[in-house]
Structures are given as structure tokens and as C-alpha cells.
């Protein structure tokens, strides 16, 4: 049972990102490098936020405090990533064999967002997954048996959200559109605060609301990338 739980949870959380990675990123060395750089950026932001959390001893038991700083740092590093990518854009084009890499400006945004998301998802879930293999499990005497599944579902949500956020954020920065940036920061705070409800085991509320935010964000990211409802429908029609 524990093994089945391990596999189902890891596939739930990382299956979709893995497929995205395999289909869109793995073929291009430059994208892999960008993704790893983004992961590293996320790591730095997380390190900084845990430093803050760790340094302020009296507030250590309040995760909300750490969460606020974590979100701020993440968005700051997202902006840093944006600056970095825009500065090195020309160089990156040279590096890559695929000279169309810059043709869609948001391509980098997607790649770096996925790197961000995967890293944050991995940090959130890896240890939980390692525990889920057994020998023990949750929910027999204490705790809730939904712990692993909900964690995995939330992780998936965060990974996808990070990807979309980066797309929106980058396009917002490109267009000086502060609404987009504002939405990213706001929804990030919103989702993170929602996850505090998990402690009360209000999983239905958290997950439902988070996924609604995810859908809204996805639609927005799709628009930012130049998609329309028409092109969405067209993408399902068979092309000869």
C-alpha cells in the first residue's frame, strides 16, 4: 500500500511537469541550462527566506511570517531571473543550435517558470514522498490519511502555478503592465495563505480554491502568450 501510495503521489505531483519537461525542454540544451539556473534561483530565494525565518527566533513558530518573506523573495528572484534572461538573450540565442529560441519572448519565461516550480515542488514534496514509502503510513491512528494525496495535489498546483506566473510576470515586465505583475504577487499570496487551511484539514476548500486560481492563472498566461479562444479551439482540430 505504501509503495502504491508513493508512486501515485509522485506521479500525481511530478507526472505532468515531467511530461512538460520531456516534451518541451529536454531536447534543447539551452533550455535545460535555463531551467537549472531557474531552479538555482529558486533555491537562493528559499535559502534567503529561511535565513530570515531562522534569524527571527521569536517568530519561528509562526510559519505565516516565513511564508510572507518566502513569497516576497520568490517574486524578487523571479524578477532577477527576468533581468538575467533579458540581458543574456542575445548570448543565449548564439549558444543554442536552435536559433528560433528567442522567437517567442515568453518561451524563456515558460522554461524558467517550470524550473522554479519543479524546484519548489521538489522541496515541498521530496521528503514527504520519501516517508510515504513506509514502513509506516498516516491515518491509522492519528493524522489524516489524505495527507500524502493532498500534499501531492497541492504540489502539482504550485508547480503549474509557478510556470504560469513566470509567463505572466515576464510578459507584464515586458509591457510594463503592472496589473499582471500585481496579479502574480496577489495570487501567490492568496494560494500560499490558503494552504494554511490545510492545518485544519479543510482540504476540499484549499484544493478547490487553489485549482480555481490555477485555472484563472492558466487562462491569463495563455492570453499573455498570444493565445485566443479561437486558437485554443483550433489546436484541437486535426491538422492535415
Amino acid at each position, binding site marked *: 500500500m505504501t509503495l502504491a501510495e508513493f508512486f501515485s503521489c509522485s506521479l500525481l505531483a511530478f507526472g505532468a511537469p515531467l511530461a512538460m519537461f520531456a516534451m518541451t525542454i529536454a531536447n534543447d*540544451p*539551452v533550455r*535545460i*541550462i535555463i531551467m*537549472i*539556473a531557474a*531552479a*538555482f534561483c529558486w*533555491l537562493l530565494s*528559499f*535559502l534567503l*527566506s*529561511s*535565513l530570515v*525565518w*531562522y534569524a527571527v527566533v521569536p517568530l519561528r513558530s509562526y*510559519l505565516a511570517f*516565513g*511564508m510572507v518573506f*518566502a*513569497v516576497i523573495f*520568490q517574486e524578487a528572484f523571479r524578477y532577477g531571473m527576468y533581468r538575467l534572461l533579458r540581458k543574456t538573450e542575445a*548570448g543565449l540565442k*548564439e*549558444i*543554442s*543550435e536552435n536559433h528560433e529560441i528567442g522567437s517567442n519572448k515568453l518561451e524563456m519565461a515558460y522554461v524558467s517558470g517550470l524550473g522554479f516550480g519543479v*524546484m*519548489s515542488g*521538489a*522541496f*515541498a*514534496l*521530496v*521528503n*514527504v514522498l*520519501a516517508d510515504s514509502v513506509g514502513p509506516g503510513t498516516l491515518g491509522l491512528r492519528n493524522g489524516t490519511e489524505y*495527507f500524502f494525496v*493532498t*500534499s501531492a495535489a*497541492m*504540489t502539482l*498546483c*504550485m508547480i503549474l502555478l509557478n510556470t504560469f506566473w513566470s509567463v505572466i510576470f515576464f510578459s507584464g515586465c515586458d509591457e510594463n503592465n503592472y496589473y499582471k505583475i500585481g496579479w502574480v504577487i496577489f495570487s501567490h499570496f492568496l*494560494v*500560499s495563505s490558503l*494552504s*494554511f487551511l*490545510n*492545518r485544519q484539514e479543510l482540504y476540499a476548500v484549499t484544493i478547490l480554491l487553489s485549482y480555481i486560481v490555477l485555472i484563472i492563472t492558466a487562462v491569463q498566461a495563455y492570453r499573455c502568450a498570444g493565445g485566443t479562444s479561437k486558437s485554443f479551439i483550433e489546436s484541437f482540430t486535426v491538422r492535415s
Partner: protein
Amino acid sequence: MSNSSSSDTEEANENTALMDGHIAEARPDREIAERIARKRKTKSDSQRSYGTVDHGVSSIHGPPQPSSAPVAGPSADAQIEELELKYGARHVIKLFVPVTLCMIVVVATISSINFYSVKDVYLAYTPFHEESPYAVTKVWNALANSMILLSVIALMTVLLIVLYKKRCYKIIHGWLILSSLMLLFLFSYLYIEEALRAYNIPMDYITLVFGMWNFGVMGMIVIHWKGPLRLQQAYLIFIAALMALVFIKYLPEWTTWAVLAVISIWDLVAVLTPKGPLRILVETAQERNEPIFPALIYSSTVMYCLAATPPAGAAGEGEPPARELRPLVPDESGENAPVENRRSPSGDAGFDAEWRARADAHPAPPDAHAHAHAHAHVHVQRLRVDGTAPAHYTTRVERPQQQPAPDMDEEKGVKLGLGDFIFYSVLVGKASSYGDWNTTLACFVAILIGLCLTLLLLAILKKALPALPISITFGLIFYFATRCVVKPFADALAAEQVFI
């Protein structure tokens, strides 16, 4: 130059580029010219690896000709850099994959087989066992141990240089073969035994001996003679992983960390100081225009290099064409056309790395112990371009375009010393031995980023750079930071199911 060959060619070019990067010193002049030529010609048809060179470039390459450099000019430089970067991107990935695989083997072993994380016996080189409860004593012990290990390594390197200078190739090869023999038989036997024990699988000695014999002999053949590239790479990765496991198992706790720090500093010194031992080795090798020893270097492309190495070396010396190409090789330029040729003094360094790698590899064998291997590997820790490649290039350069596909393998090759693999894996493996996957992951990403930066610096500085310092520094920083600061935060978040 057929279309079909183009892909291969490209690879070759890339490799070449990397080499250039390392070698960079000499290049600035000639290579720049070459590159420019290449670029203009079209990136797509990569002329065979050195095709660009071929075109007239060869003349430019002429070792002593410094004048070519001016031609390049600033714009040229920019172009060149771009080119190098381009090569870099693919190369980075070509190195990422094996490094990742090696780490995965080590981490998987550490987390599934208890044997490697239990401390009981220690290496002879680490006489202080850190059994005292006081931190101060432990630190002192760890430092003393790592200094002893370092001096052993330095000694080996010097020995190697002496042997190499005196052209005692037989002895060097003997060392190498002996050490790989030990790793392939003794250590893999231990590994298999522990693996079988961990999974509670019974096996009779006959089967075991049969399997070990085939595994070991095939390994020896593939590593020291010839065989499919993939197979050779697999064996080298496995050897590196085994060596890393040995380090993790037999070094005391704190000593491991001290050794990692000390080794990366040593790497820095040995590669970058003018009289650094590895540098001397490389220069010597370059002068002789010899290939790198196969056994201790991971080559992304041509395993044949290894097989071909001896011949290549011979050919290089004997054949005139090789000489033409030689100019590419930094060492010659460095020595023969000292100031003029070197736009960038560092050029030598690039080669150094390769050579060092070889050199390092050699030294290791001497020790009867596995340790010896380790040392050797340690020495090897740089990114190199194939040392052998140069010779090949030369040859090819002359008849480059006509024989595109066949030689491709030999030409290119980003080489990374097995020492790098070993110490990267030691770091990640050690991090994973505490059971926290976040730490492991952080170290892994940090090391990869360090590798990226090293390659980037190579392209920018055109100097030979040691591969360990940046990666290991990042790895150590992230290990300790994650362990002390990030882990409690991450654990709290996970336990409360708070997602940030």
C-alpha cells in the same frame, strides 16, 4: 561533408570548440581567425571538426604565427566567444548527463545499502578517527587527515610528473591498469556482495565468479583498449561511483568535508599557478603532443581516443600533419612562441587540464590501494578537451572534409576527469547519507550550476580552469546552509502542508 555527416560534424566542432576554450591561450590568435572563418562559412555545415581549420586556417595555425591574432580584432573576439558559448551549451549537457548518472548511482547505493554509510574501518591515510566528543578535536583531526591525504596526492602528482618527464610510460600504464584492475574486481566484488546482502538475495560463488570475471575483463578491455563508447562511458562512470563510495565509507565524517574543501583549493593551485604540478604535466604532454591516458578520463565522445591514444601520440610526433595542427595546441605556442603567440597566457592552462587529467590518472595507479585510484582520480579533476584530439585533428585537418564521418568520434570529446565525478559524487552522496533529500537536491543543483559557471568562465577567460572549486564551493555552501537553516523551515512547511 555529406549532409548525413553534418550532425556528427557539428559535434566534432563543438568538442573542438571546447578544447579551444580550454586551450584558449594559444588560440586567441589563430583560433580566432579560424573561428571567424568558420562562422562566416556557416555554422550549419560544420566542416568536419576542424574543417574550419582546414581552410587556409591551417596555415594560420602554424604554431608560431602570432600575427593571426590581430586579424581577429575585437569584433572577432566577440564572435569567437559566441561560438565557444554555442559549443558550450551542448557540452554542458553532455557533461550533465554523466555527472548526474554517477551521482544517482552513488545516492541510490547510499540510501539502499547500509554498508556504505556505516563507519567502522578507515583509510590508512586518515589516522585520526574523530572519536573524541569535542568539536575542536574533531576539527583538528579532520584538518590533519585532509592534510595527510593532500600531501599523499601531491606526492603522487610529483611522482607522476617525474615519471612522465622521464618517459616511463610503462610504469604509468602499469599503475593505471593495476588500479583499474583493483576497482573492477575487488571493489565491485565488495559492492555486489553488499548489494546482494542488502536485498537478501542468495547467490552461489560460481555464478558470482563467472559474472565478476566477465564484468571485470570486459571493463579492462573497454577502458584500456577499445570498445563501444557507451560501454566505456558506463564503465568509467561506474568506476567513479565506486571510488566515491569508497571515500564516503572509509573517510571519517568531518574529514570528508575537509577533504572536499582542501582538494578544491589544491585543484585551484595546481591548475592556476605558473608552477603548478598539473600545469607542468600538461605542458609537458603538450610539448610531446601526446594523448591523454584513457583510463582516468571520461570522454563525452570518443572512446576510441583511448584506444587510439597510443597510436595517436605516436602519430602526432611522427606525422608532419600533426605538427601543423599543433599550433592549436597551447603548449607549443606557449613554449615556442612565448609572448607573441599568447594573447592569453592562460592558454596553457587549458591544455594543462587535459594533461593534468592524464597525469593525474597515472599517478593514482601507483598506490596499491584503492586509494591510489582515488588519488589519481583526484588529480584528474578538470574539464579537459581531449588531449588526444589535437593529434587527430591535425591529421584530419589535412584531409578533413573528405573523410567526414568516420573519424568523428575521435575528434571531439569533452573530457572530464574522473576525479571531478568522484568528488561531486562524494559531496552529493555524503549529503544524502543523512537522509534528507532536500539537502541532496540542493547540492545536486548547486554542483550543476557550478559546472555551468566553470564552463562559462572557460569560454570567457579562455584559460584552463579547474572544475572542482566553483562546484564544490557551491555544494558545500548549500549543504551546510540547507542542513542548518533550510531543513527546519522546509520540514515545518511540509508538516503543516503550507505551500509557498
